[in-house]
């Protein structure tokens, strides 16, 4: 899967899961045409609104005086979307819009309100922007607006463009993408909630420089978007790169990768259950086994009882049957924590040959 395919599939997942998306990319790389093609596939009407040529009143409504007071009249594009009940609102050139216009767009993205008109639930919002460094007169996104969008980096490879010129651009089928069920969303929220319980400092990390503030950063709202993105990925059995693009696009790289690696260790059994149940299933991959034994050793260290230390050796012995090197690495750490009075385990003797050939034992 090329990087561009990953972004495209993340985009269609996000649109299905009703997450507002922002595509970052250089001008002329086909962001707009990709979004228009996506709307066609989904059979939705699309309204393209270019932010850089608009005024705030185009998003907050024009004041019109009536007998019963002032009414903020929505522009025609909002009325059309409202009548059709569903559709794609594509906010183009977001970063070249002046800050006052961005502030007015904020309300559209957040509350789906244009003047006195509220857009229906079926309207999906996609935005596109050029990085301020590329655009001659770009502004950074304001931090509140940046936090309400899932940021996806629109990348294209030369080889894919050459191939597209020769044989036409392949369009991924977005119509078959399923929306996540409420149960899947609840599961994803519970998982990320458990992660945030151990890393409370990642719940909210307001960026300190305007350059970083214009990209994704973790806040309770963006974590919720990450959970919806995860659920959408689970619903469509997406590959890891697409999931990562959605989670990192919502909460930023540092927090996103940490959450992803934690979600991966969720597949590992709980160290306590492994200690207590001699027949608990163990993972196959050496790096997963290493992570599990690390958790077991840490657990024994915290427990500090003789029985836990002796039972940990049974786990080591089980791992030694398949991957002796992983077992021996943890065995050295475990041996150093021997509580007073604990019996020397027989498993250590079984590991002696490999320790000796590796030159780690006299």
């Amino acid at each position, binding site marked *: 899967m090329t990087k561009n395919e990953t972004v495209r599939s993340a985009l269609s997942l996000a649109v299905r899961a009703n997450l507002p998306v922002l595509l970052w990319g250089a001008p002329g790389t086909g962001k707009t045409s990709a979004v228009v093609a996506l709307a066609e596939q989904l059979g939705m009407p699309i309204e393209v609104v270019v932010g850089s040529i608009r*005024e*705030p*009143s185009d998003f907050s409504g*024009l*004041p*019109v*005086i009536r007998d019963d007071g002032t009414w903020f009249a929505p522009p025609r594009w909002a009325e059309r979307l409202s009548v059709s009940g569903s559709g794609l609102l594509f906010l183009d050139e977001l970063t070249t819009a*002046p*800050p*006052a*216009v961005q502030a007015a767009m904020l309300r559209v993205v957040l509350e789906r309100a244009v003047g006195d008109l509220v857009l229906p639930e079926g309207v999906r919002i996609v935005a596109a922007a050029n990085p*301020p*460094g590329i655009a*001659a007169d770009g*502004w*950074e996104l304001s931090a509140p607006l940046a936090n309400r969008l899932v940021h996806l980096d629109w990348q294209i490879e030369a080889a894919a463009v050459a191939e597209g010129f020769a044989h036409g651009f392949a369009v991924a089928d977005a119509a078959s993408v399923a929306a996540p069920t409420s149960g899947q969303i609840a599961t994803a929220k519970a998982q990320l909630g458990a992660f945030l319980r151990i890393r409370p400092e990642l719940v909210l990390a307001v960026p300190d*420089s*305007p*350059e*970083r503030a*214009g990209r994704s950063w973790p806040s309770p709202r963006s974590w919720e978007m990450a959970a919806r993105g995860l659920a959408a990925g689970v619903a469509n059995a997406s*590959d*890891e*790169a697409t*999931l*990562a693009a959605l989670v990192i696009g919502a909460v930023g790289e*540092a927090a996103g*990768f*940490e959450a*992803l*690696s934690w979600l*991966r260790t969720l597949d590992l059994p709980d160290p306590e259950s492994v200690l207590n149940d001699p027949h608990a299933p163990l993972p196959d991959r*050496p*790096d997963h*086994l*290493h*992570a599990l034994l690390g958790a077991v050793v840490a657990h024994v260290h915290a427990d500090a009882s003789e029985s836990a230390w002796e039972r940990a050796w049974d786990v080591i012995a089980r791992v030694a049957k398949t*991957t*002796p*090197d*992983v077992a*021996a*690495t943890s065995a*050295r750490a475990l041996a150093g924590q021997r509580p007073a009075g604990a019996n020397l385990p027989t498993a250590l003797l079984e590991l002696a040959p*490999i*320790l000796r*050939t*590796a*030159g*780690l034992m006299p």
Partner: protein
Amino acid sequence: MTGPAPTDPDHTPEVLARFAEARLWAAAQAPYLASALFALRPVVLEPYVDEETGESVPDDDFRAFPADTRWNVHLDPGATLATAPPVVGWWLLHHIGHLVRHHATRSPVSANAPSTHATGEAGAPDSIARRWNQAADAEVNDDLEAAGLDSPAGIISPHALGLPEGRLAEEYLPLIEVLDTAHSKGGRRLAELIDCGSAADGIPHDYEDSASGDGLSETERDILELAVAREIETRSAARATIPGGWRRWASERLHPAVDWRAELGAMLRRGARQAAGRVDFSYSRPSRRPAVDSIVMPAMVAPAPEIALVIDTSGSITPAILTGFLAEVTAIIARASGPSRRLHVICCDLNAHPVQTVRRAEDIELLGGGGTDMREGIGAALALRPRPDLILVLTDGQTPWPDRRPPVPVVVGLVEPGPGYHTETPPPGWAHVIALPATA
């Protein structure tokens, strides 16, 4: 080709056992890399069979157990069984160095280059790839030496060649080319050419089975690298001995440096807009929209921001460095506040010099020398009429600062002080500080 060779299945368990011993040894030497070591996937290759005896013999092309970018390590049965576990372990640590430092993507050779096998002769089309492999080896090996591990014979080592340590492969590349030319005049090789696989040069090799997709995907690699980097940070916080190269790698991987140009541009745009009331509404001219029922609608105006530049011209700062930064900074200012803006420049040592109004960086006359008092410079900038919307100060920080927050935003570009000086007081909290690197 993965898994056991169909012709000779009896060697695979031995080879894998040897690999396990090597991995165990390596994890004991560098416990901070254990999770990376256990993520390596061994791939046992077809044995290289001696035609007369029918025995499998070591294939010299594979004596480095080359790795590919998906974290597969290719084990030639003969070579693996003929090598002691510590040496195999050393190579595993070496390849992890290539992999986490992304030598494949940094490689100057395009990935579509013809597939190579092991050691091309100098002058052959793939000699650039070989050179790059050597330079990358030099970048990796100084950390292994720092960890107190003995390299196998014939391996590039910056220390032994008398090259500076702790540099990047891009910096070693020209040095190695020069050294190698000198050596080959004497008819000798600088070091043996060794194939570390596509992990080092980014060219797919014909023994690598990239189509199968076995090994780590890109996301998995990212997650793994961050986990290793966090492990290194945790351990070095707990005072474990970790080579400086690995510590630097970890801190860079976890806290990537933001380009100061982007940061400064963003600061100026943000600060100047905020000060200028961003884009404001004004009744001084009517809106482009026709009024409804004789209501006059306001138009939007965007006052262009006035930026004052205060330059520290004291003796502690090198004019050459300053001139380099000035050209870049004025370009950033022009982008942030629109073209053809006049720039008000105040040179400042112990006193503020007269204001210069310039259009280009080349027109700035650097006046001054001796001590520094930025309070004077900032005061002079505040006295300008119209008052600037943002003050940008270029200094090395060897100065007293105003004890109260000035009424306009202040951005400080902190230049490294010249030789013989060291930064005393950090700038105050009300200033946005951007560190400007010594080599911009």
